[in-house]
């Protein structure tokens, strides 16, 4: 199967420090991929390069068979990538409905309202559509971010630590939602919660010191001595 997203030799330095180094990465359509690694492994830098928030120092990025390395972020989003922020970044003074409508309106001329209702319903926020986004709890703002991602009907959805700050019941609902979405969308997930990774991911990529340390099924990765060493070495708690 041809990959929907690939990188070749992707790297980025900050003031001489290599945050990401020579990463070759392939993601298949319909796949749920988890990206894990110790703090400071370069995960957020890596996905920021994918979406175009940060320019790479070297290497190339391909989306859906075309090179996107030089495209600005908004052009990549138009091609079908979507990104949810690690730190929630909703439009705090606008209503939930308007937040999601902004996401939907870019691709839809008509039927925006229906798409908005549907996206909000899927994350369980339909009843609160008229409220101001800034009044939501942190966990609900994360769900709103995901609804904004859904409303874009992307072919690749990048989620940066989506379960951070969610309650256990919300995490269960989140897992179900991601499985449902993955029928139509490839998903790349930065995640710290190992139970989420183990249950959801088809494959896992482990980054350490900006390089790919291991890649495989959740079970393979969990069994890898190199991965265990990396985690034990930097985060004693695992």
């Amino acid at each position, binding site marked *: 199967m041809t990959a929907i997203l690939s990188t070749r030799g992707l790297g980025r330095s900050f003031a001489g420090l290599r945050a990401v180094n020579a990463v070759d990465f392939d993601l298949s359509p319909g796949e749920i991929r988890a990206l894990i690694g110790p703090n400071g492994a370069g995960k957020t830098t890596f996905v920021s390069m994918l979406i175009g928030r940060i320019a790479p120092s070297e290497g190339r990025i391909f989306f859906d068979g075309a090179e996107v390395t030089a495209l600005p972020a*908004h052009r990549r*989003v138009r091609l079908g990538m979507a990104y949810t922020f690690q730190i929630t970044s*909703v*439009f*705090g003074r606008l209503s939930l409905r308007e937040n999601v409508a*902004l*996401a939907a309106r*870019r691709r839809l001329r008509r039927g925006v309202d229906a798409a908005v209702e549907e996206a909000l319903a899927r994350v369980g926020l339909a009843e609160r559509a008229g409220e101001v986004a800034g009044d939501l709890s942190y966990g609900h703002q994360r769900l709103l971010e995901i609804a904004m991602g859904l409303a874009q009907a992307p072919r690749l959805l990048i989620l940066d630590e989506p379960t951070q700050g969610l309650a256990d019941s919300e995490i269960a609902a989140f897992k179900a939602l991601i499985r449902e979405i993955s029928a139509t969308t490839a998903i790349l997930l930065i995640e710290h919660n190992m139970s989420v990774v183990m249950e959801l991911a088809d494959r896992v990529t482990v980054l350490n010191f900006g390089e790919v340390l291991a890649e495989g099924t959740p079970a393979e990765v969990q069994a890898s001595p190199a991965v265990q060493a990396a985690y034990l070495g930097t985060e004693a708690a695992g």
Partner: protein
Amino acid sequence: MRRDYLVHGALLAALLVAHFLLPAYHHGVMARVMVLACFAIGYNVLFGYTGLLSLGHALFFAAGMYGAGMPMHLWGTGPGAAFAMGVLAATLVALVVGALALRTAGVAFMIVTLMFAQAGYLALLLASRWTGGDQGIVIAQAQRQLWSIDLSAEGPRYLAALVLFGVCLIASLALMRSRRGRVLIAIRENEERARLLGYDTFAMKLMAVTLSGTFAGVAGAGYGILFGYVGASFATVQYSIYPLLWVLLGGAGTILGPFLGTLFMYYLVDTASDLTSAYLLVVGVVLILLTLFAPGGIGGELRRRLWRAMP
């Protein structure tokens, strides 16, 4: 939806009724206020809705004013064509200034726009052979005739001002209700998020600067033609501060705010200038009080207390 247009339509109707009722002095003041409110509406598109604070809007106002006044003065162009030339000039100047200044943000954007406007003002003085320099240009009454209507007479002048104001008011309402308008608000709230929803935020901001300049140009060209004077004083920093003040006072990010702010401030300055030559003191005091106590202005207070969904 309908309600918005009804409220704003009612304001325009009231201003039309006022044409027949107002005593002569206030009739003249209101005509000025309506034209200047177009300037404020344009400023509000950029500051209130897009969140960009410019300190150089006098440049766009003056581009409209001189763009209309100089062809009339130098080549005897008629007021209709001159008006179009003024608006076009302002739009082009705004497009160029926007394309350059939008490479910066925040405080740097404020200073860059201020500097461009200052350079424009000085250029008007330098080119005094054509612009009249400090003296400006007086446009003869004989030239201010459109379809044999005398625009310098009080009645037609008021109605022309009302037409300009009505078009600008409804245009800004339609803009802010449109998809593009919503994106401008999104940029004000969180530019990075808007970009990652796939919107070309630079292009949208450039559109906002350009449209804002067009409104300012409408006001500048209209003011020059209707009141018969084109002067460099309209290009000074003061005329960049005024629209900021009007919009802050009336309520940034509301459609009615610019008009309310212009109206109140005009009368405030007018009253003060009867009392003292230092009437600009009022401007300073109001600016400080607004930033301290009422950052939402009149419109913000209305929205908070009476009408939450006010556009």
